[in-house]
């Protein structure tokens, strides 16, 4: 059948060098992609107290998708591969090598032979099979992992060190997915447990830290494994982690988190509010930030509604938005304007900023041509109907409301009346299903361009009501059906262009993860998806 290729690492390098040029030109902003800097020789020992903004609820890396659940879970598990945050390259971790067939349907991983779980059992091909089987069995409870494994046909244990994962249809994104904690490898003693028993603490992985205790709403405590020796090839040092103990303290109030850091009650905090950045920086704390890959914060059109179904209106909305003003006014210097359908830290990112100018005059001209004339109160009217659009949004990111109010004013300047409708997070899925909105405001974090297919494929949830059979749908399917990096980059770039060209999505700014870190904490690094990794972190 398909011709097998030895190690996709080589094509990945090619792909990456192609991207790197693009990524570098865009990454020259004020943000620091590298975490917190060095200060002398790393020292082994000590503790780190990191404040999380919300309760993880479940400590199983497979079951929760929030940042605050991933931060502690990431330290417990190793993945088959790792992804270079600078280049997007997929590199060895538990797997030393892998082969992908041309159709991107069969992935064969060769495992290193020295890794063990913290219960002493070996990390072997059977463990890989058990892990993936259990993610599929979890189904909707493993929201991320089961999506990555959609079309999973099974894992074959070729021998103790070789596992072959196959899919019913092409699934190119799977290779990157193996680098995420959502597909981190767990011991059989964990995978054979029912979902709920894993949530509260029965999680055995092979990671540099072991879970000691999870107290809901209070803390997650972990300690290092003294015999750890199979770190990712990307890490600064091999062997056991420097820190002896990690405590993730849950502090929901952002003001209390900031104060706790400033008064020395914790060593680092997540979820730094944009308004607190300046005062933390002034007080001598390091702000570690990295733009999240994936879909930037954007207004995305619901194509089943009559007004956003009109391309002239969609393009006018895009032209009317002044992205720089949004970043300058409601965010902090850590944030950057969106320059395409994907954030610039995403693999295969294409700079489309020339398609995203701020040009209110052209927006007005487009609307004039479409027959929308200014009404008595400045809102445009056509055949007695006012140009009124509803944007639905969720309060999952502090500055959302202010950003949208500013965009509201910017659209009003060209005669578009944008109404804002907020939905509580729990009601979001139902509201998206219902489709009672013209635009949805939101973002999604993922390093693989396949996130566009997740959001816009007519065959999946399709909350934006994209029609099937369009060039966009073809491009989205094509980028997931090839392992050829050039072809993948080309089809992904095509999808990125199509999405912004007709205003289907109006990207505004990239989400940036901002951490506040005390100056005695060093080498607190970000992985490719802008989540923290603490193996190399040390305290002085």
């Amino acid at each position, binding site marked *: 059948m398909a011709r097998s290729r030895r190690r996709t690492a080589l094509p990945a390098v090619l792909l990456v060098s192609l991207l790197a040029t693009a990524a570098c030109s865009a990454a020259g902003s004020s943000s620091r992609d590298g975490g917190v800097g060095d200060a002398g020789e790393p020292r082994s020992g000590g503790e780190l107290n990191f404040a999380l903004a919300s*309760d993880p*609820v*479940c400590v199983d890396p497979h079951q*929760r*998708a*929030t940042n605050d659940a991933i931060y502690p879970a990431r330290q417990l598990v190793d993945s088959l591969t790792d992804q270079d945050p600078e280049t997007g390259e997929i590199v060895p971790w538990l797997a030393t090598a892998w082969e992908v067939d041309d159709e991107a349907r069969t992935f064969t991983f060769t495992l290193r032979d020295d890794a063990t779980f913290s219960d002493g059992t070996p990390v072997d091909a059977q463990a890989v099979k058990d892990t993936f089987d259990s993610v599929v069995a979890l*189904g*909707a*409870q493993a*929201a*991320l992992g*089961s*999506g*990555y494994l*959609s079309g999973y046909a099974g894992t074959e244990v070729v021998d103790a060190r070789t596992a072959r994962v196959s899919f019913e249809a092409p699934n190119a994104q799977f290779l990157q997915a193996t680098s995420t904690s959502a597909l981190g490898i767990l011991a059989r003693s964990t995978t054979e447990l*029912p*979902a*709920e*028993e894993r*949530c*509260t603490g029965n999680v055995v992985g092979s990671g540099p830290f072991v879970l000691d205790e999870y*107290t*809901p*709403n*209070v803390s997650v405590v972990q300690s290092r494994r003294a015999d750890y020796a199979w770190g990712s090839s990307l890490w600064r040092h091999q062997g056991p982690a420097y820190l002896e103990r990690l405590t993730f*303290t*849950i*502090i*929901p*109030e952002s*003001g*209390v988190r900031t*104060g*706790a850091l*400033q*008064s020395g*009650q914790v060593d680092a905090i997540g979820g730094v509010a944009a308004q607190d950045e300046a005062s933390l920086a002034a007080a001598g704390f390091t702000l570690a930030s990295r733009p999240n890959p994936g*879909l930037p914060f954007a207004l995305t059109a619901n194509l089943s509604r009559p007004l956003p179904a009109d391309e002239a209106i969609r393009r006018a909305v895009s032209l009317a938005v002044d992205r720089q003003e949004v970043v300058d006014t409601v965010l902090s210097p850590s944030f950057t304007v969106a320059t395409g359908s994907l954030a610039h830290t995403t693999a295969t990112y294409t700079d489309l900023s020339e398609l995203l100018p701020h040009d209110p005059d052209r927006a007005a001209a487009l609307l004039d041509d479409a027959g929308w004339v200014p009404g008595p109160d400045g809102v445009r009217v056509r055949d007695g109907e006012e140009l009124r659009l509803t944007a639905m949004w*969720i309060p*999952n990111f502090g500055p959302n409301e202010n950003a949208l109010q500013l965009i509201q004013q910017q659209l009003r300047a060209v005669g578009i009346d944008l109404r804002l409708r907020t939905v509580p*997070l*729990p*009601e*979001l*899925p*139902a*509201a998206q*299903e*219902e489709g009672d909105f013209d635009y949805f405001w*939101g*973002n*999604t*974090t993922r390093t693989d361009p396949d*996130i566009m297919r*997740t*959001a816009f494929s007519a065959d*999946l*949830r399709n909350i934006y009501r994209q029609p099937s059979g369009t060039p966009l749908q073809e491009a989205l399917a094509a980028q997931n059906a090839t392992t050829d990096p050039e072809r993948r980059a080309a089809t992904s770039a095509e999808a990125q262009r199509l999405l912004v060209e007709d205003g289907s999505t109006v990207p505004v700014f990239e989400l940036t993860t901002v951490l506040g870190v005390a100056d005695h904490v060093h080498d607190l690094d970000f992985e490719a998806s802008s989540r923290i990794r603490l193996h190399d972190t040390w305290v002085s």
Partner: protein
Amino acid sequence: MARFLARRIVQSVLVLWASFTLAFVVLYLLPSDPVAIMAAGGGEASAVTDEQVAELRETYGLDQPAWRQYLERLADAAHGDFGQSVANGEPVGRVIAESLPATLQLAGCALLVAALGGGGLALAATWVRRGWLRQALLSLPALGVSAPTFWVGLLLVQLVSFRWGLLPAFGNEGWDAIVLPAITLALPVGSVLAQVFAKSLRTALAEPYAETAWAKGASPARVHLGHAVRNAALPPLTVLGLLLGNLLAGSVVVESVFSRTGLGRTTATAVNSQDIPMVLGIVSFGALVFVLANLLVDLLGPLLDPRLAAERAERAVPA
């Protein structure tokens, strides 16, 4: 007395049933359900299929018609079984039992602060002779009631913990961690107590028996503490039964601000994820506490005021 008790118990059961039903109806009417929330992966795009979602709904019995879910949950609840949390599969009863001690500790400390502070303020306000001072003291409770708990908590944290470094800002460990949350939680409760107690003290001091005591040469302290307080204690005691509900409700905010574990935080998390079994369990538990507290207050009343016992005995006699 037995008839009074029987009537109150029947009433209590009705209150419990009504709160359970109301909570179920509200949760059921919300447009989303816990499985959809779980599948949404925290608001970000996920590729979970409809079949997978349907499967999970079946696991939790959420695919059943509403009346059936209601009857089954009600029957289980009547046996004390509230099922398992949808969010993490923990038995609801165990979660409540585990988070309760921390909240009881907090509420108990807050109650002590409220009773001492509120009672003391009321006594002081009725004791002082200077008009302006009395007015100033009497207007303090209004301030305490109207200051938002959330704001007071953050203010205390900023000043006492971050600026002066006297007490920890978060957590459950150690006696010092409970001081700020207890004061924050006690403020609105103590203020209401102070208002009610001050009012009833003034009424009692104006009663003829107080005049009589004065006339017989009793000292001001004897009139105030001996005669008036005992008669004036009943209204604040009755209000206290109602305020227990406030303490539980206030713990939702206070435990979040001070990053404490407990029933309040558990409630906030459960409501946010629309964890139906968990919310039903907590609501029913809250109703039970409320009912028991009020029953206790009703039983204590006659001990303070023998007239109440006589009244009840009278009403218990068939007409």
